[in-house]
């Protein structure tokens, strides 16, 4: 497999983009940063699928495609299924010798937003992971149904306001905890599972490369700040991601073979979660006195989660 050098950014930048501009994602959208980086991590051919979502409706709007690789979108829920079936077809045709170029190296990748990954496509994802196909699934987690105007998903954190879990005089927004998709995917016995963030480009690139190199079903959850629904200035996408990783709201770690957990980033200067929440409009209401307990709850959840991750890393079980 042709893995591109990620020794440093200069080396990495010699890559030739295979995700083209003039797509119609919002200015400052992290989705395309993540997709570009994945595609720049390898020189192999790629077969990519996407669930319905922002990425899909912005990169293949007839008569334009932004994809320089084979790409397929079917429906909201089945990117994992379509790309893994293509992978099965590849193995059959390779065996039969009916491919145009039988030796061309190829990787199979599926993208989904948190809506299609955590919610509507969960069964399809789970099935594909269980079947053990050789593919990588990447969730672009912007913690809401951004494509349809910002409704809650099961990835939306406690306290965020969304159009279907609104903050108001009688509500502080979403009441339920974010689903731990990484743990669920690790529990499928996937050989490589990780949570990564685009501000830490190198750990993200390393994780992508590991996933592409690892045989079997790999899963990566990437935080993808959404300036439109999180309500911050598009220029701050990377800055917000810094706050997410440095407050440990979004810890970066990998789990190998379902049990071996490695923390990939430890903030030198650990921030309070207020710094992260305060930078986004979706959490503004939490700073009212009556909602102070929600911020405390979020901080305490973060602390507990970090403790758990560290202990799991130590325990190697």
């Amino acid at each position, binding site marked *: 497999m042709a893995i591109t050098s990620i020794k440093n950014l*200069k080396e990495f930048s010699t890559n030739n983009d295979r995700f083209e501009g003039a797509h119609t994602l919002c200015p400052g959208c992290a989705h395309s940063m993540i997709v570009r980086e994945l595609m720049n991590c390898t020189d192999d051919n790629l077969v990519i699928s996407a669930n319905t979502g922002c990425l899909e409706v912005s990169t293949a709007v007839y008569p334009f495609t932004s994809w320089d690789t084979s790409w397929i979108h079917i429906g909201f829920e089945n990117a994992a299924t379509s790309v893994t079936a293509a992978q099965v077809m590849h193995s059959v045709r390779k065996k039969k010798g009916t491919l145009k170029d039988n030796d061309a190296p190829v990787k199979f990748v599926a993208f989904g937003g948190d809506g299609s990954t955590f919610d509507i496509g969960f069964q399809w994802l789970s099935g594909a992971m269980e079947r053990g196909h050789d593919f990588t699934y990447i969730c672009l987690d912007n913690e809401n149904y951004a494509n349809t105007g910002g409704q809650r998903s099961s990835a939306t954190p406690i306290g965020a306001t969304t159009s279907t879990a609104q903050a108001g005089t009688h509500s502080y927004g979403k009441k339920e905890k974010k689903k731990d998709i990484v743990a669920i995917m690790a529990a499928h016995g996937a050989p490589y599972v990780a949570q990564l963030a685009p501000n830490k480009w190198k750990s993200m690139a390393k994780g992508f490369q590991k996933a592409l190199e690892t045989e079997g079903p790999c899963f990566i959850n990437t935080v993808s700040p959404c300036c439109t629904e999180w309500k911050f200035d598009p220029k701050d996408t990377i800055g917000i991601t810094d706050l997410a990783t440095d407050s440990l709201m979004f810890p970066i770690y990998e789990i190998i073979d379902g049990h071996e957990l490695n923390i990939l980033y430890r903030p030198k200067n650990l921030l309070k979660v207020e710094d992260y929440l305060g930078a986004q409009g979706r959490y503004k209401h939490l700073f009212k006195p009556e909602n102070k307990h929600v911020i405390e709850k979020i901080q305490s959840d973060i602390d507990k989660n970090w403790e758990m991750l560290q202990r799991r890393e130590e325990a190697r079980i």
Partner: protein
Amino acid sequence: MQDLKLKANENRGLHQLESGKDLYGWDEVTQGSVLPSFEGDASKIAHLKAEERDYSNYNSYTATVASWRVKKPVFNIDVCIDCQNCWVWCPDSSILSRDKQMLGIDYDHCKGCEVCVEVCPTNPKSLLMFGENEDLETALSQWPEKKKKEK
């Protein structure tokens, strides 16, 4: 240096889809709405730079979103250290980088999000936002001096 013709092949921006022109009939649309990205053999596409590729008219590379922009980033090569921060985080594949060097901005694809300016580490920054109609020379002439570190 910023005037390199790296950014586009000849047919870029020819489609006038947003204006409702160039919409053709049912007999001319592709079978199954399938879109081929290139003309000719694209087997080695990962090893070709944009200017060496034979993009099809269906590739969004040939289109432009320049009109989305209100402000534009201007690049000052004299300050740049080629760190490639802007390249790695540009969401619109609009940073023209060749052989580890930052060369300029693809203004057909840049939406003016300003991420490149934010992530630029030099002092002063090598990318700054200017009005869409500001010309390069005027912009460069207004470049700020190096800021002293606040103590």
